[in-house]
Structures are given as structure tokens and as C-alpha cells.
């Protein structure tokens, strides 16, 4: 439902006003005042409850009841303002009729829309900073466990990457790479900073989402805001409305649709044998037709066996309403997602309950928001740990890598699952189904988030208004990380004869207290609003790790459980505190000139006392051209134009605690004479002078409303420069520091970009539709990397001064050697280089010029790992009782280093092959770009290079949601005001050339283009129902 209304300036013809008159004496006016009554309905004639109606220039308000009716005391000819957070606000003039029926018709955007900003709300038309408003109603059509995921493709300048497993936490970046550390934005929910993870909050409870992108908008969050701020407001009850009961629910199935083409048994054996023969090694017995151990009976299709159909469901029940002085909202939510991997994980289940209410009387107002959430996440078995040697890729890739000659089950082995033998298969290949079935890993999270506020109207006379607000919140998250490894044997390299248990807990608390004073005064054509405040925040993190091993069967897998021969405990406690002052002035002259100036002073415990305090000022100017008398444009074409510019500074202290303190490690163990001793020594070097990261942000924007509000357009340009970026600058290993990248304020980064968003709305008879689109560009540049300018290397990437972060870096492919003469003629690569090996380009040598030897001096930049464009497209339409929406998003112009692909195109190693490998170079198949097979790969063909397909285009367009709904007529069942059924297809298809799973994988900061292996996003088909009474 769109709750909007035509602005009064358009026409009153569409909005017929009927007013019932009732006279009440007004002390400040000679005019007669009376009681006007009205009914607010939407375009379909349905009553709209809960809309706030305010008499302009006063504090007199009313709220519509269940039948959409309101009454208000006012003078003839007075203006009322109809507002509602997340919807649009409208003005009407009260005329002589007895009863007014206000019909709200949809409008794409509206200037009077109220937007939640830092420490308050503002009309959209008054905003001078860069604030993106997310269309929450559309965004919520995407089923996800994490609110942050809803931002993908919905707001320009906001990039969301995520994996596809249940409970996946997306990575959100606002306006590019502004830091090398944690780049997640700050989330503020109902006015409280909740850190960088919001998974415990149900998307169903959300009323509105705003993204603050520049310094002006975000400066009041100072040192926490450099990565941008996402402001989320949850649903509240409405005054003077009876109990409203709403149910939303859906059920869907998940299926992985991206299947990697890998070789079957016969082809695997063919390729593996060829690799070994070419390396001069005997065949693996299991692949050798002449061996009694030759495997012919097993041909496992691991993807078919290991992937299953998952499912998801979500049920939400909410009760809300309010009386003359109070509001309330209670919501219960259940989300459950079973993943697509055979075995114990991944799954994610969450139960949550939210309660909020508010009471006001006289000059006082108090209220609270309380959330309790419990979740259980069965993690996909991690591939690191005591019994899994080597740097294994995420377990999802195991289903692609596992060799087809390995069976799934083997009752003879401990645990019952098959594994490889060095005497048969002679490869290290992981049975992912077995591992994911034997090992049990889960995380239980309980979170209580409570926020209580009180307001006092200290002064209200002669247009002066002064309010004091006290906001106190407490946020506690308790997590239990449980991991039990029974004794098991999955063969070669993957075995543990000892049963082991890790039972760990993490407890995080954050207490916040905020005091703010808000002063407002309107006189003549001036509007002034001043905010000052003070806040103090303290957080603690407690880690308790318990370990026991040597359990005997039958297992009692708790720390005190039977038979454990050895136990161990460890833990840590961390505190963080921040004290701040903040201030803001908004000044508005004649709705033409707007100024916002704000500042925050933060002092953080994360830095030594001399570097502790940071100041974060900002200023923004706005100019509404269309309100100038000398600009005379037809309002039905150019309705409103605003130019705005901002400049300011933000900070980032999100670097972990005690980083400036040099400490000793008191747990360095050694044994003398059979007795264990624990020594102590400094194991890491630190920089004791680290300080804030400072981001200077400039923003220029244009907001235009055209065609009487049916076309809405925004464009912005930003230039963000972050200095003193805290970065782990690698130091030589010979300094003997275990952390060979101590954090220092070393780098300067600049991000510039353009952002566009546009919405077009059209309504004709029974047919209405909306088209909205956004596009953003990001250009990143590293301006300095400290005194030494030493590049930072990531996985196949380099970050150096003058270019963007994490460019692909490696050798340059020049073709395939076809004969010995070509090898002799080319720069020396390896003594065993042979025809069929890759020819790499001789770029440089010790003297800076080609030296006829291929070594690490011949590496070069191979391309960008950061998308240059991000875009989102939404089309939604309604015809009679049907509604439809389609949402797609994508990114373009970047290259991906796909570990999944490269590992499948190995020449030796321990994995299956991609079918592409059948086209490898052989003496009879020379017209190819895929090198010969040789198990030892003496030429190092697998090295990081730009050989064909080693870097793949990341361009993609994903059809995120395709949804079709049907609305039953109101009153079909007694008391029912709304009933809608819908079907949605999610992640229906992705147009991509990329040969891995997700082109929007999550990655490390120094190798943004490196896909280590991300869980595929399943295709989800779901059906749902929405009811309200």
C-alpha cells in the first residue's frame, strides 16, 4: 500500500475536503476555531488508519482511527499537514465543508517526505547532505536473514556483496574503499548505534531505511561514521488507533542452480595419468588399469550427491495500536533456512520478539524499544582446524574438487565415510559430505537490545521550542560456539583418532547514554534548529574458550563429559569506551537557502592519551532554485530543484582494542625434562602512536522533482579522501614479529564517484507502475602508503601508490611453447620447461630491463578487481487486484581471480578437473591456450598470471526478485482489512560470464577481485501471504 497524497500546491480538485465544524475558543486568535472532521482513504477507497494530522504552526495533532477518520480543532482556512515516517507528507487547507474525505493518491516521491537523519528527522526537501532513502516495501520482497542484504541494488553508492549460505552476513560498502580495515557501515536502529552487524533484527520489523553517505549527513556519528551510516527505524504503533493484527508469512524452496562441469571417472583418470606420466612418475594404482587396485566401479558425482534442496520460511505476527497518549507495537518473528549442503550445515534459525511503546502527557514523553532474539546457526563445517592440514578452500568447493574415484561411504573407516589412500588414489581429496556429516558446529546467539528514552519540553512559547532528551540503551549479545569432532578417519590428511570438543562463548555488551537538547525557532522567513548533545558509550567483549579431548564412545560431548582425557581453558576480556560531544545547527531561509553545520568531538580508548581526541566538523549548503522569484519554470514540468553541497570530516576508530599497547604473550610453551613450562615474551611489534583515520568528504548534489512529482531524480558527485588510514603495513619477516603487518597510520586513499537515481511513476485507470533505477561509479586511488610506499601484496594482487586498491598482479601470458626451439629462443623459465608449457613475458630484471630470465621481477599489473559500476533496477506495477515487481542489480568492469576455477584447472594437485581441461595441450592438440599436464608443473603454469580464464570478467546482472501478488478485496473475511497472496522467485538467474558461483562474493580488502570460494546463492521459489485485521 502506498500512503501518499497529492500536495496542496498541485490542486485541490483531486482532494475533496469535507469538514465538520465545531467551534472552540482560541486564546491567541480572534478567528473562530471549530472541530474539523475528515476521513483519509487510499486510491482504492480503503480507509488508512494511523496517519498523523498536524495543524501547521502548532503542536495540535490528531491520528486517524481504524476507519481512517480524524478530527482536529482549527480555524477556517488553516493548513493541516499529514505526515507519516517512511511515507509522504501533504498539506491541505481546511475549508467550509462539513466533512472532508481526503483521497490519497500515489506519488513516486514527495518533497514533504519525512526522513530520519542523525539524531532527528528532517523533511526531504530540507536535506543538504547525501542521504539515500531505501524503498523498504519493495526491498522487503527479497527473503533474507539479514537486513543489510536489503540494501543491495536499492541505493546508489551502496555496494552489497554476500555469499549464499543461510545466515550469511553480507559485506556492505558505502562509496568505495575508504579504509583498509573494517569497512562495514555503522548501523543505527531507532537512534541507537548497534555496530556493524544487524542480523538479529528481522526485516519484517522495519519501517524505513536511510543511508547517510557524506560527512554532512553522518558527522554527528563522528569517529564511527567514516564508512557511512545506515539508519533503520522500526515499526511503531500509532496514536488513537485500535488494535491492528498483521500476519506475514512465506515458505520457499532453495536450489543451487550453478553446477560446475567437472570430469567423470574415466576422464579424471585419463588426465591424472597423463599428468603423472608427463612428470615421470608412476600412475596412481587406483588410476592404473594394470594395477589390481584400479578403480572402475566408483564414479561419484559429488555435486549431485552433496547438494540438496533447501527450504526457508518466515512467519511474523504483529500487534499494534495506540490511545490518545500512548502507542504500542508487539511483534513476533520466526525465520528458518535450511541450506543446500548434505550433512549438518548450513542452516539458520531465528526467533525474535520486539516490543515498543510510548507514553506522553504534558511536557513529558517516554518510550522504549526492546528486542530479544535467539538464533541458531549450523555453520558449514570450517576447513581449518587441528585435523585439516593445509590451506583448504571453503567446504562448498569440496563438492567440486572431490575426485570421482572416491566413494562417499566406507563402513570400515571410523565415522563411516570414505577417504583416499596414498596407496590407491594417491591424492589428498576431501570427502565433504563425510566431513559435514561427522563434525558438528553451531553458534547459538541470544541478544537483548533495550532502549529507553525520555523527553521533556522545557520551553515552548513565542515560537521557541526547547526539548531535552535522554536516551539510554543496553545491548547484550551472548554467543555460544560449539564444535564437536568425534574421532574420524576420512583418509590421508583428514583424520583424528581423538574426539575433540571446543565449547566457546562470547559475550558482548554495549551501554550508551545520550543527553541532547533541541532548540527550534521559526520567525518570519527564518527557521532555526539547534541540537547539542553529549554521549558516553562503553563496550565489553568477553571470550571464554573451553576445550576437551579424548572422549570415548558413546560420546557425552560436553566439557565435563565422560572420558575426556585432557581439558584446556582460555579466554580474554576487552573493553572499549568513547566519550563525545555533538552539535548541529540547521538554518532555513525562506525555503530557499539551507545551511547545516555540525560537529562532533570523540575521545576513544583505542588510542594512547595524546592521540585520543578527534574533531569531526561539517558544513552543508542547499539552494532551492525553484523557490526563487527570478526563476519562473512551469511547475508541472519542473516542480522542484535543489542544489546542495557539503564538506566535512569523519573518522574511523574501528581497529580493535589495545592496538597501541606493546604486550607480552604470557603463554609461550616449552617442555624441559618432560615438564611443560609456560614462558612469556613479546611476540608482536606494534606502533604505539596510532591515531584516528580521518576522512574528508565533499559532496555536490542535485535533487529534482519533475512532471508534477511523477519523475524524481537525484545526481551526486563525491570526493572522499581518507588520510592516516590504519593499515597493517608488512614489515620484513626478519624482524621476528608474528604479526608481520603491524597497524600504522600509513595510507591515504581517495574515492570519487557519481551517483544517479531516478524514479518514474505513472498511474492510469486501474493500472499504475513505478520504474526506478540507480547507478553509481567508484574510482579508487591510493595516494600514499606511508614513507616507504612499499606495495601491499594480497592474493595475486598489489596495492600501490597511484593506482586503486588490490589490482590483479602477476605474470603476463604470451602463448604456449610449441617446440623446443621456441623454448630456447625465449627467456629462460625453468630447466624442465617443455612444449605445451606457457610462455611468460620477460618484462624486467635486476637492472630494470628484460634480462632473459623469467622470475618474480616479471610480474605486472593485470587488471582491476573493483567494479567500476553498480546498478539496480526496479519495475513494479499494479493492475486492479494484481501487483507485480521485478528487481535486478549488477556490477560491471572488473576481473575476478577465481580460485574455484584455477584449482579445477590444476596440473598436479589433488582435485578433479574442470571439463575445460580436456582441451589441454598435447602433442596432437596444439591449438589451445590450456597448457600441458605435468603433475609437478615445473614451468609453474599454474602461477598467478593472466593466462586465458585465469582472470575472468565479473560483469553480471542478477534477477534478484520477480514477484506476483494478488490482493483480495477488503472485508472478504469479517474484520480483515487486507489480504494478499504472492509468489516470488528469488535469484532467478544471473547473467554472467564468470565461471565461479557469485560474482558478488565477499573478499579481503587487499584482494577485492579474489574469490576464495563463496557459497552459491540458491534459486528460491516461495509463496507467501499477508493478512491484516
Amino acid at each position, binding site marked *: 500500500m502506498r500512503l501518499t497524497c497529492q500536495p496542496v500546491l498541485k490542486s485541490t480538485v483531486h482532494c475533496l475536503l469535507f469538514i465538520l465544524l465545531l467551534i472552540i475558543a482560541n486564546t491567541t486568535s480572534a478567528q473562530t476555531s471549530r472541530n474539523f472532521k475528515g476521513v483519509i482513504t487510499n486510491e482504492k477507497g480503503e480507509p488508512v488508519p494511523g496517519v498523523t494530522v498536524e495543524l501547521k504552526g502548532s503542536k495540535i495533532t490528531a491520528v486517524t482511527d481504524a476507519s481512517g477518520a480524524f478530527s482536529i480543532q482549527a480555524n477556517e482556512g488553516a493548513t493541516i499537514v499529514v505526515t507519516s515516517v517512511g511515507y509522504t507528507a501533504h498539506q491541505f487547507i481546511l475549508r467550509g465543508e462539513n466533512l472532508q474525505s481526503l483521497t490519497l493518491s500515489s506519488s513516486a516521491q514527495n518533497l514533504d517526505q519525512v526522513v530520519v537523519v542523525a539524531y532527528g528527522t528532517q523533511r526531504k526537501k530540507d536535506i543538504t547532505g547525501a542521504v539515500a532513502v531505501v524503498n523498504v516495501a519493495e526491498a522487503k520482497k527479497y527473503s533474507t536473514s539479514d537486513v543489510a542484504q536489503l540494501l543491495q541494488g536499492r541505493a546508489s553508492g551502496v555496494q552489497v556483496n554476500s555469499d549464499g549460505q543461510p545466515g550469511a552476513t553480507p559485506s556492505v560498502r558505502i562509496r568505495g574503499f575508504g579504509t583498509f580495515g573494517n569497512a562495514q557501515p555503522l548501523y543505527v536502529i531507532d537512534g541507537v548505534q548497534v555496530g556493524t552487524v544487524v542480523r538479529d533484527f528481522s526485516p519484517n520489523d522495519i519501517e524505513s531505511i536511510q543511508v547517510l553517505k557524506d560527512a554532512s549527513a553522518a558527522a554527528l556519528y563522528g569517529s564511527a561514521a567514516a564508512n557511512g551510516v545506515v539508519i533503520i527505524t522500526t515499526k511503531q504503533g500509532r496514536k488513537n488507533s485500535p488494535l491492528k493484527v498483521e500476519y506475514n508469512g512465506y515458505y520457499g524452496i532453495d536450489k543451487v542452480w550453478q553446477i560446475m562441469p567437472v570430469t567423470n571417472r574415466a576422464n579424471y583418470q585419463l588426465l591424472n595419468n597423463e599428468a603423472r606420466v608427463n612428470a615421470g612418475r608412476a600412475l596412481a594404482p587406483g588410476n592404473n588399469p594394470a594395477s589390481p587396485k584400479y578403480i572402475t566401479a566408483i564414479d561419484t558425482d559429488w555435486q549431485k550427491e552433496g547438494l540438496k534442496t533447501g527450504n526457508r520460511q518466515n512467519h511474523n505476527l504483529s500487534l499494534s495500536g495506540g490511545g490518545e497518549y500512548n502507542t504500542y507495537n508487539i511483534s513476533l518473528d520466526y525465520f528458518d533456512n535450511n541450506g543446500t549442503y548434505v550433512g549438518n550445515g548450513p542452516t539458520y534459525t531465528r526467533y525474535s520478539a520486539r516490543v515498543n511503546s510510548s507514553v506522553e502527557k504534558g511536557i513529558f514523553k517516554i518510550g522504549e524499544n526492546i528486542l530479544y532474539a535467539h538464533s541458531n546457526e549450523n555453520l558449514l563445517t570450517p576447513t581449518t582446524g*587441528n*585435523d585439516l592440514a593445509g590451506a583448504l578452500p571453503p567446504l562448498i568447493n569440496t563438492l567440486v574438487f572431490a575426485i570421482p574415484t572416491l566413494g562417499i561411504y566406507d563402513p570400515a573407516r571410523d565415522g563411516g565415510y570414505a577417504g583416499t*589412500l*596414498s*596407496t590407491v588414489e594417491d591424492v589428498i581429496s576431501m570427502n565433504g559430505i563425510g566431513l559435514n556429516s561427522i563434525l558438528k558446529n553451531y553458534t547459538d546467539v541470544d541478544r537483548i537490545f533495550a532502549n529507553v528514552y525520555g523527553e521533556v519540553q*522545557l*520551553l515552548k512559547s513565542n515560537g521557541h521550542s526547547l526539548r*531535552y532528551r535522554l536516551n539510554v540503551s543496553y545491548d547484550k549479545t551472548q554467543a555460544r560456539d560449539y564444535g564437536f569432532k568425534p574421532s574420524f578417519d576420512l583418509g590421508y*590428511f583428514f*583424520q*583424528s583418532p581423538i574426539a*575433540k570438543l571446543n565449547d566457546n562463548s562470547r559475550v558482548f555488551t554495549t551501554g550508551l547514554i545520550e*543527553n541532547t537538547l533541541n532548540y527550534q525557532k521559526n520567525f518570519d522567513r527564518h527557521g532555526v534548529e539547534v541540537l547539542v548533545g*553529549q554521549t558516553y558509550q562503553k563496550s565489553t567483549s568477553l571470550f571464554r574458550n573451553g*576445550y576437551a*579431548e579424548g572422549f570415548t564412545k558413546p560420546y557425552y560431548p560436553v566439557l565435563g563429559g565422560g572420558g575426556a582425557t*585432557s581439558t*584446556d*581453558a582460555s579466554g580474554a576480556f*576487552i573493553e572499549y*569506551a568513547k*566519550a563525545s560531544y555533538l552539535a548541529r545547527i540547521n538554518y532555513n531561509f525562506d525555503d530557499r537557502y539551507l545551511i547545516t553545520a555540525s560537529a562532533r568531538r570523540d*575521545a576513544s*580508548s583505542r588510542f594512547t*592519551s595524546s592521540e*585520543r581526541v578527534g574533531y569531526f566538523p561539517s558544513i552543508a549548503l542547499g539552494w532551492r532554485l525553484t523557490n526563487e522569484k527570478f526563476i519562473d519554470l512551469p511547475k508541472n514540468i519542473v516542480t522542484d530543484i535543489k542544489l546542495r553541497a557539503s564538506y566535512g570530516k569523519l573518522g574511523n576508530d574501528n581497529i580493535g582494542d589495545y592496538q597501541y599497547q*606493546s*604486550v*607480552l*604473550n*604470557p*603463554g*609461550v*610453551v*616449552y*617442555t*624441559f*625434562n*618432560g615438564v611443560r*613450562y*609456560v*614462558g*612469556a*615474551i*613479546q611476540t*608482536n611489534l606494534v606502533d604505539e602512536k596510532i591515531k584516528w583515520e580521518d576522512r574528508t568528504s565533499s559532496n555536490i548534489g542535485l535533487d529534482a522533482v519533475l512532471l508534477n512529482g511523477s519523475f524524481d531524480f537525484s545526481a551526486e558527485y563525491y570526493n572522499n579522501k581518507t588520510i592516516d588510514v590504519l593499515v597493517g603495513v608488512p614489515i*620484513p619477516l*626478519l624482524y*621476528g614479529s*608474528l604479526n608481520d603487518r603491524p597497524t*600504522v597510520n600509513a595510507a591515504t586513499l581517495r574515492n570519487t564517484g557519481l551517483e544517479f537515481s531516478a524514479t518514474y511513476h505513472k498511474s492510469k485507470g486501474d493500472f499504475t507502475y513505478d520504474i526506478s533505477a540507480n547507478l553509481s561509479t567508484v574510482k579508487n586511488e591510493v595516494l600514499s602508503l606511508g614513507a*616507504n610506499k*612499499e606495495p601491499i601484496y594480497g592474493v595475486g594482487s598489489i596495492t600501490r601508490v597511484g593506482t586503486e586498491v588490490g589490482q590483479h598482479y602477476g605474470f603476463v601470458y604470451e602463448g604456449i611453447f610449441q617446440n623446443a626451439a621456441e623454448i630456447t629462443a625465449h627467456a629462460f623459465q625453468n630447466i*624442465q620447461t617443455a612444449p605445451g608449457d606457457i610462455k611468460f613475458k620477460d618484462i624486467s630484471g635486476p637492472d630494470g630491463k628484460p634480462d632473459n630470465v623469467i*622470475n*618474480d621481477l616479471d610480474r605486472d599489473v593485470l587488471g582491476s578487481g573493483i567494479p567500476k559500476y553498480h546498478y539496480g533496477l526496479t519495475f513494479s506495477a499494479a493492475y486492479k487486484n494484481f501487483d507485480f515487481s521485478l528487481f535486478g542489480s549488477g556490477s560491471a568492469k572488473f576481473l575476478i581471480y577465481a580460485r574455484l576455477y584455477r584449482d579445477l584447472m590444476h596440473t*598436479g*594437485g*589433488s582435485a578433479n578437473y574442470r571439463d575445460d581441461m580436456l582441451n589441454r595441450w598435447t602433442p596432437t592438440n596444439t591449438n589451445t591456450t590450456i597448457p600441458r599436464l605435468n603433475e609437478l*608443473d615445473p614451468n609453474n603454469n599454474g602461477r598467478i598470471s593472466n593466462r586465458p580464464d585465469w582472470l575472468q570478467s565479473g560483469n553480471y546482472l542478477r534477477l534478484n526478485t520477480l514477484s506476483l501478488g494478488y490482493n483480495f478485496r477488503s472485508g472478504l473475511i469479517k474484520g480483515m482489512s487486507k489480504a494478499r497472496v504472492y509468489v516470488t522467485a528469488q535469484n532467478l538467474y544471473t547473467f554472467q560470464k564468470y565461471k565461479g558461483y557469485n560474482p558478488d562474493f565477499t573478499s579481503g580488502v587487499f584482494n577485492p577481485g579474489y574469490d576464495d570460494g563463496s557459497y552459491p546463492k540458491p534459486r528460491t521459489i516461495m509463496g507467501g501471504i499477508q493478512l491484516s485485521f
Partner: protein
Amino acid sequence: MKKISLFALIIVSVIVFITGCEKKLNLVNPNAPTTTGYWVTEKQAFDGSTAMYSAFTVDGTYMRSFPGLTDSRGDDFVGDSPWADLVLTGKFIIPSTSGPVQWIWRDHYIVINRANQVIEGVGKMDASILSDDKKNRILGQAYFLRGLSYYNLATTFKFAPILTTPEFDRNPGNYPATATEEVLWNQVFTDLQAAELNLPISYDNVVGPDKGQKGRATKGSAAGLLGKSYLYRKDYAKAALQFEKFITGPLQGIYSLMPNYRDNFKEGVAFENNSESLFEIQFAPGGSTDNWCCEPNSGWRQWTSVSITYGMDGKAFSDYLPTRWIYNEFKLEPTITGKSDPRLLATIASYEPADNSITAYGGTWTNPLTNIYPRKYTNDGLGPAFEAFGGSFINYRVMRYADVLLGYAEVLNELNRTAEAYPFIQQVRTRATLPNLATVKPNMNQAQMRDQLAHERALEFSIEGQRINDIIRWGWLYNATKLAELKLHDTDFTSWTPGNEYLPIPQTELDLNKNLLPNGAN
């Protein structure tokens, strides 16, 4: 008026609250002591000394990669692993980006850093806190461990930078530069001399918390390794002086050969830190976090993965195999009772019915009967039915008394006292029940004795991380005849090219530190 007083009350309370806040920002890390004000108690001195040793139990030192990558370059050992790094190292074509190569570099410098912290921190402690006696012991250990690290770096990388303080200069222009081979060895000599001077012969009767702590470096550890270092650098006169300390000098009678050769490679108090051992790295059960690398904690394990890496097919990873040449070398000379040299079956797992050895890991020999596998430093025959991941704790012997004896014999031969070398060689041969060399091969000339010593060392020290070092110091790779022999011993040598006998300097280090020179293997 009422409103104003309420307002004032709030303002005052806010100010009171605010002024209290900033003091709350001085948060002290409750998890670990800070470095400021450390090194002031005796306990801290000893804790620091313990922590140095710990860095020798990780992947890049003696836990796996250092023995593995050293052994695999010898002519007695070849890689047979799906992990290409292990094979390529033996073939002398390991790229400078190899992980294990980097770990060896990294982990030895971690030992050096910790030794430097102790030398600086303990060095300035007042006698009122730490008696001179204790202080010398601790400093002596720091010098020894640092000297041993530089010795390993010199034999593995040929040359490397020297750090003698824990100070960290952040300016890349001042990053430590490569020291020449000469200067690096001089540092080894200096450190080991200081160690020998300061260390006690034994900890059995010292006064202090380290009393009875077998496993700490001793005077013998330093004196022996110093002698070996001089030998490596062909300073025979000084080497002779060092070794003579064991024969006729202050260390006389302290060390002796174990009657049973295999006892040197077994776990347990009866076999570890035994009379033959000059210094060894201690591995022991307990703990939960693997000691491959990284930040230690009190729950750290101290297991060695050499066993599971070396152990045979079906019982372990079998990442390496002995060469047929070394097997045959053992068979060249039977014992006085006509059996195979007992060191064969202590070194190599082989199916030998003639020597009553037909089992593997206490059970039936399951592999092809002609196959041979490493046995030294594995648990084959010591109880376990297979190598359990995390289940091996055999101390790694860094230097044995047999090395002193054969080293002294070599020194005597090089000093043209060839005849005097016989009895020292014979001590080692007698333990192996081999006949008297003076009878079998009397009156050898210097060159013949060199060949004999090479043979004796190959048998005595096979799979002990020594062979490639001997091959390098004897110059065999640059001697056409010897190189041809090596290629016959081990085809891996066919891909050797000059300079590649060392491991390459890790690429990441060269990228970061412009003062660092590549070596011939880069």
C-alpha cells in the same frame, strides 16, 4: 520559573556526568602484561628464556619443514608427495614463492628476535634481582639459540641479514641488509663462543628454577656446534681445539655414544636428552592448539609432524622416500656377525627377512616388498600402528656426540694427521658392530680417508638434515666427477644448476626489503 530551574538542574547534572567520562578512557589491557616495566624480576628472566625455545617447535624450524626441506636436497632422500613444494625442493627448482621456504626463514628469525629480547632485557638486569650466575646461564642460552639460528640460515640460504637487537627500524631504507657469508659465519662463531663461555655443563646442580631442566642448552651444546661450524668453514685448527674439549678437555667424559643407535630417535625419558645428545628440540604431548605457527598460547601443543610426513604409505603421508643408493650404501659392509648394518633398519623401513625384520608399525608389511621408506624419526616399530595426526613427540636431535667424533676425525685428516683419525671413526663403527677400520682399510691416504668419512657420515647421519650441507661444503656440486656420482645416487641432481643447492631467499622478503640480496637459488 519552574521550567528554568528544571532546565538548570538538567544542565548541571549533564556537566557533572560529562566530566567523569574522559577519565574512563584509560583502559588497561587486562589480558597480558605490557612491555613497559617488564624485565624486572627473576621470574620474567626465566619466562623469557623458556619462550625462546618455543619458536624451535614450529613448522619452519624443527617441527616439519626445516628437516624436510633439508633432507630432501640430499642424495639420500627424494620427495614423493602430492605437495609439489616438497618434490621441487629436492630437485633444486623450488620457486622463491614457496610457503615452506618462507616459513623456514620466518621461524628462524622469530627465534633470533626472542633471543635478542632476552639478551637486551636480561642483560641489563641488576645483580640484586638476578644473580650473575643465573644471568650468565640465561644469556648463554640466548647466544646459543641465536647462534644455532644463524648457523641454520647460513647452511640453508648461504647468506642473510644479522640482527643483534630487538629494535625495529620502521624506515625501509634502514631495513637490515644482507650480511656476507663471511660476516654471517663470524656471527655464528661469536654467538657460540659467548654461549660456551656462559653456559653450564649441566643443569643438574645449578641453583635456580632451572635446576634439573634437561633440554636447556649447555656448554657442550655450544662447544660442539662451534666446532662443527669451524669445520664447515674449513678452519680446521680452531675446529680441532673445539672437538678436543670433548676428548681431552673440560668436556671429557660428559658424552658417550648410546649402545643402541636407534635409541637416538625414540621418544621417552630413557632415550631423550641422552648421553649422546649435545642438544635437541623437545617435543611433548598436551595442549590443544596446533604448533604449526603463529601466536602461541598456554594450551599450545608441541608435537612434531616429521613422523607423519616421513612415515610409509598406508601408515602416514610418505611425502619422502630414501634413495636406492643410500639403501645400497648400507648394504656395502656387513657387521662382524654378517648381518646388515643395524643403522639400516634404524634409518630405513625395508622388508629384510635376513635381518628378522618383516613388519611395519608392529604389523604385517602391507606395501610391495621391495619398497623402502624412511624410518628414522618415525614411530615405526615403537608402538603405534600408524602415525596419528598430532600424535608424535620424538625430540629432534640437533647434534649428537657421533658428530663430534666424526668431525674430529675429519679435522685430523684435513690437518694431515690421517692415521690419528682411525680410532674416532672406529668408535662410531663399533657401535654399529662394523669391523675395525684399521684392519679393513689400513693406511688410507688423505683423499681415501675423505671418501671413507663421506661414506661413514652418510650412514651415520642419513635423514638427519646433514647430507646436503656436507655435499655443499665438500664442493661436490662443483666437481664434475662428484656431481656425476650424485646424479647416479639421486636423479634429482640432474635438474640442479649452480647456486640452486641453497633454498631461495623468500620472494616476499625481497619485495619488502631492498637491502636484501637474492642468492643463487632465486
